[in-house]
């Protein structure tokens, strides 16, 4: 008990030490920090658009445009807007009712970012085909990473609502926990992979994190080698291991044979019964055929993925 308390005290002490160290580091780094200022917003804009200029001043773009005429860099010349007609149509507006097409809005961003390798394949993007532009996801007024309008997963869910539901399910990649993000697997700016994945094939993408499944194995399970998505779903599932269906039904969808592969595993095989069916309970087929992703096991034991 005393030992446990001591351990906990040591843990707190370490945390405090780290915090103090961090503060000390800052002193070394910066001395007296100067307040962050946004130099990009010219006074005439702030007179009417105080909230917009305030958000801009705290944005990454404001830092990039220090010393320049920030607003006009993206919104274009403002003479007509200031002197004649103060409508959204007299500047380059990114509002829905601003009267600018997706192509025009994207072109404004690409004036500076057009040579970025990150958008080199924007023309191939499904997002582009769907009529989206840069400002569908980004805003020049953001202080979030990548100038996103919202935190990444929330942003993606605003259109891909079914994915949020899947990510909420009991078996899921840790998207909700913030350990995996949409852009770890997908490139929203386009590319060559199906579903804009960051790989030439699904398996290549999955093996980036699941290298233990890469093999190559002596005894292979063909659907596993062709496409992980035949049995798994990427974002979340009601079934453990992100399976599209629960075993043994999933396995029996392909495997019908004499004796046990072709048997019905019903409530008569549950734990509640005197002789539960091992093909039904616990991890069902995996209770024996654990190495379904491939095996180097001996003879028929390897062939059947039980060793």
């Amino acid at each position, binding site marked *: 008990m005393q030992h446990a308390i001591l*351990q906990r005290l040591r*843990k707190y002490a*370490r*945390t405090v030490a*780290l*915090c103090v160290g*961090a*503060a000390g580091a*800052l002193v*070394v780094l*910066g001395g007296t*920090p*100067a307040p*962050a200022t946004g130099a990009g917003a010219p006074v005439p804009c702030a007179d009417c658009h105080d909230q917009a200029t305030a958000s801009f001043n705290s944005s990454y773009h404001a830092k990039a445009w220090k010393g320049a005429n920030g607003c006009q860099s993206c919104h274009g010349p403002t003479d007509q807007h200031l002197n004649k007609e103060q409508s959204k149509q007299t500047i380059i507006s990114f509002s829905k009712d601003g009267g600018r097409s997706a192509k025009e809005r994207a072109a404004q961003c690409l004036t500076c970012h*057009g*040579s970025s390798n990150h958008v080199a394949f924007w*023309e*191939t993007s499904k997002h582009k085909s*769907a009529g989206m532009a840069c400002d569908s996801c980004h805003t020049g007024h953001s202080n979030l990473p990548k100038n996103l309008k919202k935190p990444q997963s929330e942003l993606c*869910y605003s*259109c891909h*609502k*079914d994915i949020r*539901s899947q990510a*909420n399910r*009991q078996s899921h990649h840790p998207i909700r926990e913030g*350990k995996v993000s949409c852009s770890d697997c997908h490139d929203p700016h386009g590319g*060559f992979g199906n579903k804009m994945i960051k790989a*030439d094939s699904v398996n*290549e993408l999955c*093996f980036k994190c699941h*290298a*233990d499944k*890469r093999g*190559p194995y*002596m005894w*292979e399970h063909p659907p596993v080698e*062709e496409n992980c998505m035949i049995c798994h779903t990427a974002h979340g599932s*009601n079934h453990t291991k992100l399976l599209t*269906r629960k075993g043994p039904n999933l396995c*029996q*969808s*392909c495997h*019908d*044979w*004499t004796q046990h592969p072709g048997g*019905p595993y*019903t*409530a008569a095989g549950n*734990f*509640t019964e005197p*002789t*539960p069916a*091992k093909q039904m309970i616990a991890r069902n087929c995996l209770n024996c*055929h*654990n190495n379904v992703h491939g095996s*180097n*096991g001996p003879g028929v034991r390897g062939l059947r993925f*039980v*060793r």
Partner: protein
Amino acid sequence: MSRKNQRRWEMKKAYIPVTAMLAVLLPLASYADDKSAGGSIEVAPTLADVSGSKAKFNEYRDIEDGLYGAVRLWKETDTFFFNFQADDILYDTQSYRVHGGDYGRYKFNLFYDEIPHNLTYDAKTFYSGAGTANLTYSGANLVNVVPSTDTSTWNTFDYEVDRKNQGAGLRLDLLKPLYMDVSFKQEKREGIKPAGLAPGTTGGSSALELPEPVDYVTDNLKAEIGYSLDPIFASVSYLYSKFENDNDNLFFRHTVSANSDAFTLAPDNDYYKFAFKGGAKLPMSSTLNLNAGRSVAETSVGLFSSFLDTNGATTTTTSYVLSDSVFDGKVVTTNYDVILTGNPLSFLHGKLFYKFYEKENKSDEITHTRVLAGLDPFHNHLFGYEKDTYGGEIGIKLPANFTLTPSYKHVKTERHRGDLPVSKDDIYGIAARWSGLDFLTVRAGYERLERSSDWQQLTLVTGTQATANAIEPFIRRFDAAPLDQDTYKLSLDISPTDNLGIGLGYQHKKSEYTDTILGLRDDETDIFDVSADYTLGKVTLAGYFSYEKTDQFQFQRRFTSAAAANPLTDTTVGDGHYNWQINEENISYDYGLSAEVALVPDKWRIKAQFDHVNSNGTLDFTLYESIPTDFTNDTVDQANWDDYRKDSLQLKAIYDINKNLVSTFGYAYEKYKYSDAALDNYRYFFSNTSLTATNYLTGAYKDQSYEANVFFATMKYSF
């Protein structure tokens, strides 16, 4: 001290990357002009009371009693920037990240990040050595013997796997438009996961669940050099990945022998890939985009030539003469993509694409000759495939802000596989979008997939070919089976006012496996979702609701000999050969509501969030004969098929003490209730019809329900 806490205290190593990051950054930063710098320190004392499965509650988290801490430091000048962020310091979810650089010249990053994956705590086994590659037990062999009816005497261990990622990256833009990007990442995975095997003669004997050690290290190195200046882009890249498993095999004392047998584990492998990507803008607002890549995955594994087997209460050894004692695996993939896009007229844009993907299997073919006379030799089948994909789409802008996009895609797949070696997909689609009103966008889409496949009689690697000849003509495996699939989508985005947004969506997908007699025949999904957000003065409200219903129909045959395999001509009742079917239904829905109220602007805020997730699965069986004793076709159904519900509530009061100091007081409640026919009333051991084959389990995924109350406070000081 528990193993978990012990490990935490061993994580002092975490200080090493942190120290390294700061050591690198401080000198760099000191050269920069002093324009602005800042940071924050956050501490969060937390009290967590969890009843039930702590593992499921903390599946990817590490919430417990303790003091959580986060630190952020940043510094910026006209040219130089850096950011240091540390979260969940010393916990299993801790992460430390640094990024910085000189705008437009170079960027660098370093990181250390941990992701736990907790499956089940306090699993049990009669083996000793859980977590190692050698499992053993003392005393007599287990045949006909249950080691102890008191599983409290068994050894306990936790099913959990922790990932520790660390790495660094550097991007150089000093010679624009040339750039270079180099990154390295190492992932260590440690822990235990469940494994299962059949120690007996046939699949019908018994199952043995074992704790499998996970001690993986994967090193990834990526380098890319490119040229990027509008209208040309080109890059070449190289990726090298090395996977090492400390344990080649899991050795375990056989249940019917004093000898050990082996279960093979994930093999070490090397992977490398060269790739080229290029793009060019062409006349008439068109672009040409190219991608080419070639990768190689290799492994080399020593093979076992025998395994232990059971014959009742005794063991036998099944031995083979192998054509090679080492398996050298090699898989080569080749990929080419060409995409041509164009926007020749203001109202027309289009895309044409072609993709070639090939997976060649150049692994060893190992011939197994069984020592026992009279059985034919067999060898592993080398699977590979080739896929050709081409198609296009045309986007047509019509009057009244209406856009129509018809599309077509053809996919031909040739597989080195016996039953369905070639399949061809024709996918026709049309998407429509209307945004005629500023406050409304409507999207609708339809897609039709028609898959044809050439079926061939499967030739077995080993086994009874007569059985294959009898049953295979009725089986079409769904991954490549002939298929008609229709998908409909509809969505509306409505924003009648600036402070109100509503989204509605509906999807319907129906898949019909047209040639399948045995196997999955129909699959249907309906999804409906809605979300809304509303801001009124000091109040922001948001909510979502999603509903999904899936139905699958599966038809199967139970039979014991090739002569009784035909599901279409079975007229004999009561012979034990019969057809059966499942109608599987899963209904899932989830909803969430959140509210944020600024009680006193710039001083007091309250945030509340509630989420509910619910899933209900059922299996409706119909057995055409041989209904188990004491059951009927109505009672053999499974009512709980991964059923669960989860309620989560989080309340937070945020008080801005002053410009630099923010405090939060919060409470979180989470209740998860899980029920599943395969896990309810769990038993660690049970026998088949006779005690000659006892199944031994360890409790993986057992009892996942939990209820948790968490109180927390945070104090964040920004400077």
